[in-house]
């Protein structure tokens, strides 16, 4: 359950938006920090460099002017010692200063002339010697035994000896490290917090979209007079809802028009048909000989066929537009099919066709009874019209949790291969079919209007196979094309 919600969360647009937003924000702030860090590091270095060059000049001056007697090393040493106390950015006042600053004088023979600092200065000397060139600007000197490099400034004295003043970068590095650590903590906090805010805001926004989607899908399935929820805010989502509602207005009005047109068509054609049929019947009730009444009888037959064609055409058109009016009741499919088989059996056996039924017993479905009757009748009419003698029609009624399945198969010639894939299209029929090609289109339209499905195929052993799956859901679950209470005209 948890992983399921987590999964759906990961797939949500809100999650993706906040992820990408957080990423962009994190990278951006990181870039800004890198620039800031460089600026600060450069500034610190510039300051320490300025101090170093200043001090080394002073020391060079002192070393140059001090007479080279036995007091020399003491005087210069004292001055160097003093200088080391004025080190900028010093954090640890209690630390050993000699660890921090060194002063070194090397004679032109390369020997150590004077050393102020911790230890004997030999590693420092070795490091200086390793450096091939001597520059006027301070540089980083890596001394063996120390973790952080020394920023070192040098100067050549008049007597050809060199003096070196080194300042440990330990504190500078610690300051920067501190800065990085604090920034990282803050950055992490901001990114997490920011992405959480973005996530919840977009989730809320997209929640509105989801509500609209849910409402819209329900409208698509049932009630066209309903509308999606609109928010008072005049943002994109508000616009979306308004646009959808506008579209629904138009769909509803065209649906209304369809009802009006089919209603008007039905009425306009039906009234003259009724009049013609009635007059023919009255004429027929007069005293005629059989030969004289024949044209009247066939005219009535033709009229009835025309009416049926008109009815089915309108039904199929309405069902295709999801505008079929259903009045749903509970129907026992098992009983209905038994009655239907009872009705068709004599005609079938007249033609030498056998019918057998296998049923799972009571199968209640929610359906428009009149339409369901016609669906079953159409299926059996089809078998009756197209099967040659001594064939068998097998009807199997099964049931599972959410659908009733009706399987109608026969061992006849099957559907013609050129039409089997479009058998549910209107006016598609076999070459030898005398029907109007609406029977299976009607079946499919009605089944679909009830939320079911129907498939047609040819059996591998030969013969046609029709499988109808009819949902068993309660009234509320079944798709009810919207009920415009259009009064019959």
């Amino acid at each position, binding site marked *: 359950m948890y992983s399921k919600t987590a999964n759906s969360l990961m797939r949500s647009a809100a999650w993706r938006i906040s992820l990408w937003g957080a990423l962009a924000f994190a990278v951006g702030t990181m870039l800004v920090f890198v620039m800031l860090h460089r600026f600060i590091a450069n500034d610190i270095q510039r300051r320490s460099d300025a101090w170093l060059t200043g001090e080394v000049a002073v020391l060079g001056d002192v070393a140059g002017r001090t007479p080279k007697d036995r007091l020399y090393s003491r005087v210069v040493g004292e001055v160097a010692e003093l200088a080391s106390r004025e080190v900028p950015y010093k954090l640890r006042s209690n630390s050993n200063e000699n660890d921090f600053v060194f002063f070194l004088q090397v004679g032109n023979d390369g020997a150590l002339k004077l050393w102020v600092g911790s230890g004997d200065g030999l590693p420092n000397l070795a490091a200086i010697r390793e450096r091939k060139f001597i520059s006027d600007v301070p540089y980083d000197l890596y001394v063996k035994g120390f973790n952080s490099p020394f920023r070192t400034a040098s100067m050549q004295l008049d007597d050809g000896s060199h003096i070196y003043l080194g300042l440990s970068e330990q504190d500078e590095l610690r300051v920067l490290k501190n800065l990085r650590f604090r920034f990282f903590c803050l950055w992490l906090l901001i990114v997490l917090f920011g992405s959480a805010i973005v996530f919840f805001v977009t989730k809320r926004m997209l929640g509105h979209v989801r509500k609209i989607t849910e409402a819209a899908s329900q409208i698509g399935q049932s009630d066209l007079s309903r509308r999606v929820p609109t928010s008072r805010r005049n943002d994109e989502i508000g616009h979306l809802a308004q646009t959808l509602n506008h579209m629904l207005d138009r769909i509803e009005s065209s649906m209304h028009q369809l009802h009006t047109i089919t*209603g008007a068509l039905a009425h306009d054609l039906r*009234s003259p048909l009724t009049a013609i049929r009635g007059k023919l019947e*009255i004429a027929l009730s007069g005293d005629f000989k059989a030969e004289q009444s024949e044209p009247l009888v066939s005219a009535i037959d033709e009229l009835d066929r025309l009416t049926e064609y008109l009815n089915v055409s309108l039904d199929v058109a309405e069902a295709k537009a999801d505008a079929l009016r259903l*009045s749903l009741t509970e129907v026992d499919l098992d009983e209905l099919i038994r009655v239907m088989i009872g009705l068709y059996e*004599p005609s079938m056996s007249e033609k030498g066709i056998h019918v057998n039924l296998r049923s799972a017993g009571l199968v209640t479905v929610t359906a428009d009874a009149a339409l369901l009757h016609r669906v079953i009748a159409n299926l059996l009419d089809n078998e009756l*019209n197209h099967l040659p003698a001594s064939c068998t029609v097998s009807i199997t009624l099964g049931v599972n949790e959410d659908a009733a399945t009706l399987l109608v198969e026969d061992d006849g010639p099957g559907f013609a291969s050129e039409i089997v894939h479009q058998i549910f299209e209107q006016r598609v029929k076999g070459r030898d079919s005398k029907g109007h090609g609406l029977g299976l289109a009607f079946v499919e339209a009605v089944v679909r209007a009830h939320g079911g499905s129907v498939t047609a195929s040819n059996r591998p052993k030969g013969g046609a196979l029709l499988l109808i799956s009819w949902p068993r859901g309660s009234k509320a679950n079944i798709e009810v094309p919207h009920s415009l209470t259009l009064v019959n005209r």
Partner: protein
Amino acid sequence: MRLLLVEDEPEISSFVKQSLVEAGYEVDTAENGSAATQLASKQAYHGLIVDLGLPDQDGIDLILQLRRSGINSPVLILSARRSVDDRVKGLEQGGDDYLTKPFALAELLARLRNLLRRNAATSEEAARLRVLDLELDFISRRASRGGEVLNLSPQEFVLLAYLCRHAGRVITRSMLLSEVWGMRFQPNTNIVDVHIYRLRGKVDTEGREPLIRTVRGIGYVLKDR
């Protein structure tokens, strides 16, 4: 019996009236709702035939309005629509009936007779029914002709019983479908004819006067004289 026919199409109105008069009813016609209301307030009718698509008023509203003013005569509704409005279904439960256009006149007459009889509430279901030499026993559900028991299936018995109850009147195929099998649709095949053919094979055996007669283009009739 006096009937009120409310129908705006003069063509339909005229031939329905003609056949009703021929069937022995007295018929007044109204072309719209207000004329019908006026007529119904002046004169008591045994039954009403109302078309749903009236120029000035919806037929259902007219019926409800008449009901409210205390007119309780049974109503036969004529509808041009093939699927019938739920409101009409509601009325049907109240004892009224409907017919979709185009209809067979025979069916109109049969349904009207049913309605009027239902309203009179006289016809107790008889235990036995006799039509000429045909005899039906509804308790043992057996039929005999001229004293000879006919070997009918239960379905055939129901079919024959329906024909006998309406002996002498034309019964259409769709009436048989709806009354005997409880299905309201127009069959595309001759399923009903085969049932009748089989029944006839058992009732009208050789050497006997045929009782079940086919009225071509309309339906069947069981002779009663």
